[in-house]
């Protein structure tokens, strides 16, 4: 057990090694490796059914794993039962004890063993102050609002001084307004405590606004793990590109390569992209990703790189920006985000022909590749980014 703990770097709080989970024939988690540094806020995001909650429950000890290893601050906790782990979970449905008042709920974890009543009271008072529940301690749980309930949930976990806090969509039962306020509050709390947070969410803006690093999961695998900016601007896989933000994806074949640019024949045009350090060979199939806010419109007929003709098919005004939906000649959809409605071409009308362009430097190249580690599983193809 302790041989491994020597290898793990001391500042790593949680390390997941090859976690796999099968429910009968269904593979919930395939082979998950992940490490979380001390004091880091990591968000796991993915569509429902991607295994993110299962992963969190495995870390908490509420779910068994089929194979793999869990290290918490260098200690192997794989075999520890849930009540002996120093991980604490914050629940989506709060899971507060209805027969206890706020104070008793928060104190629950402290009063299980032998305890000093005065010390417990002091600790509860302190943590309640921290999460602004000071004046609610004698209330019944049913008298609290959703936001207050979740504060109790967080306080109840924090008061036991966990080594990592696990949060399972803790804000998704709250209304949008409160959610945003709680986001910044939670981030501040996390930074103040210097405690690692592992935060599961399906909400991209929640993950991006709070997390130091974001894990994007799909079908029981980690697609990408990195800072939010990187996930957003440099998606590594086809799935991430599709799941995150509003990306345009073009599939095509490499036809030419020169001056650090590769040219890719796509359905409607030849698109250029920065080749990067490890460019794909001529004739290989690639996918190109362009963020919608990198796409510009130009007067029709203007020459240059990455010119794409399209017809405006829809428009969405969101307040700070306008999203344009365009259709190419081959029927593909292109999204363009503009900070203001355009003025140079006049007010864009539906069915108006337009010319779009973007810089080759803003084009991310994904090459279809076999996922590392599962080469011998036929049919499991994914796209892996190049030159990052």
């Amino acid at each position: 057990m302790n041989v491994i703990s020597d290898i793990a770097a001391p500042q790593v709080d949680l390390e997941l090694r090859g976690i796999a989970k099968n429910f009968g024939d269904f593979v919930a988690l395939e082979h998950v490796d992940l490490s979380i540094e001390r004091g880091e806020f990591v968000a796991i995001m993915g569509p429902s059914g991607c295994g993110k909650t299962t992963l969190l429950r495995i870390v908490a000890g509420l779910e068994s794993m089929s194979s793999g290893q869990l290290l918490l601050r260098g200690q192997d906790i794989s075999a520890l039962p849930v009540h002996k782990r120093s991980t604490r979970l914050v629940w989506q449905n709060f899971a507060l004890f209805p027969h206890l008042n706020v104070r008793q709920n928060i104190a629950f974890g402290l009063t299980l063993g032998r305890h000093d009543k005065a010390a417990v009271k002091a600790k509860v008072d302190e943590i309640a102050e921290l999460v602004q529940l000071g004046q609610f301690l004698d209330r019944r749980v049913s008298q609290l609002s959703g936001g207050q309930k979740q504060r109790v949930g967080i306080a109840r976990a924090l008061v036991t001084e966990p080594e990592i806090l696990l949060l399972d969509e803790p804000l998704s039962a709250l209304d949008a307004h409160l959610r945003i306020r709680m986001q910044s509050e939670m981030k501040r709390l996390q930074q103040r405590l210097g405690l690692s947070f592992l935060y599961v969410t399906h909400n991209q803006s929640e993950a991006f606004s709070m997390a130091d690093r974001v894990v994007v999961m799909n079908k029981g695998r980690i697609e990408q793990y990195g800072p939010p900016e990187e996930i957003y601007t440099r998606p590594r896989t086809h799935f991430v590109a599709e799941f995150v933000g509003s990306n345009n994806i073009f599939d095509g074949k490499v036809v030419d390569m020169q001056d650090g640019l590769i040219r890719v024949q796509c359905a409607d045009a030849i698109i250029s992209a920065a080749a990067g350090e490890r460019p794909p060979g001529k004739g290989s199939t690639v996918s190109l990703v362009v963020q919608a806010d990198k796409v510009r419109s130009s007067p029709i007929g203007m020459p240059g790189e990455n010119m794409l003709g399209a017809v405006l098919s829809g428009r969405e005004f969101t307040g700070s920006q306008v999203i344009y939906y365009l259709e190419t000649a081959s029927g593909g959809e292109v999204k363009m985000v503009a900070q203001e409605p355009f003025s140079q071409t006049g007010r864009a009308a539906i069915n108006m022909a337009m010319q779009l362009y973007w810089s080759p430097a803003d084009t991310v190249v994904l090459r279809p590749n076999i996922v590392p580690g599962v080469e011998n599983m036929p049919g499991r193809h994914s796209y892996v980014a190049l030159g990052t």
Partner: protein
Amino acid sequence: MASAIHPSDPLAADGRGWRLAGRLYMAVGYFFLVLPIATMIVFSFQKGQFASIPGQGWTFQWYGKLFDDGTLLAALLNSLIVSPLAATGACVLGFLAAYSIHRFRFWGRGAFSVLLVLPVLIPPLILGVAFLGLLSRIGLQGQLSSVILTHMVVITAPAMAVIQLRLGQMPSSLEEAAWDLGATQFQTLYKVVLPFALPGIAGGWLLAFTFSFDEFIIAWFVSGFEQTLPVAVYAYIVGSVDPSLNAVGSIVFALSMLSLIGVELLLFPILLSQYRSGDD
């Protein structure tokens, strides 16, 4: 009264007629239901030996006779020992059974839950004969404990049903949250599950108590000389008819009503309301 809001509605007059007919029907129904009980209570305080038009004057003599005679009173005391104990035993068994079915997925779980309900489905006459045969073989017949045991067999199922209903309202995250905070399985059971199930257990207890208190057939077979109240009342009727029975009936009615009102007050608000705590 409500129809007065729409005086011009041609259907209103018609509707009023139906409503009136419905109320009349209901009144008749209640009258037939309540009349015998009311009669019984009234005559338990009447001087006359035979049931006739009231007016012979009021008295407590039949209650007094009851206390002087002793058999019915002794039987009432027996019942007040048997029923609470049987109800308590049924609730202990019922809670454990309901919890294990609620919480665990084990081999034979379906068969287990059917087995628990089975005693309710078997006619009490058959159960009574079977119990008598079994108990006399093992030397347990004709005692209060034999009535307690046999009643427990029959009233565990209703008690469990009520407790199960309550446990069904408990989200699984509640127990998991307790474990996550460091509670062992036993601590969780004691500190979270039991308090949550308590209203259900109280309701189940009152229901089980009422079932046992009224139960005649099985008790008649197994009670021997340690008669419970229904058995003693039956024996009394066979011998003679006298207004003391009205007094017994009134006492039994009062006790049953008290426990039923208890069920009403405790149980229904909980079973009708959704799980309210942390929830949505």
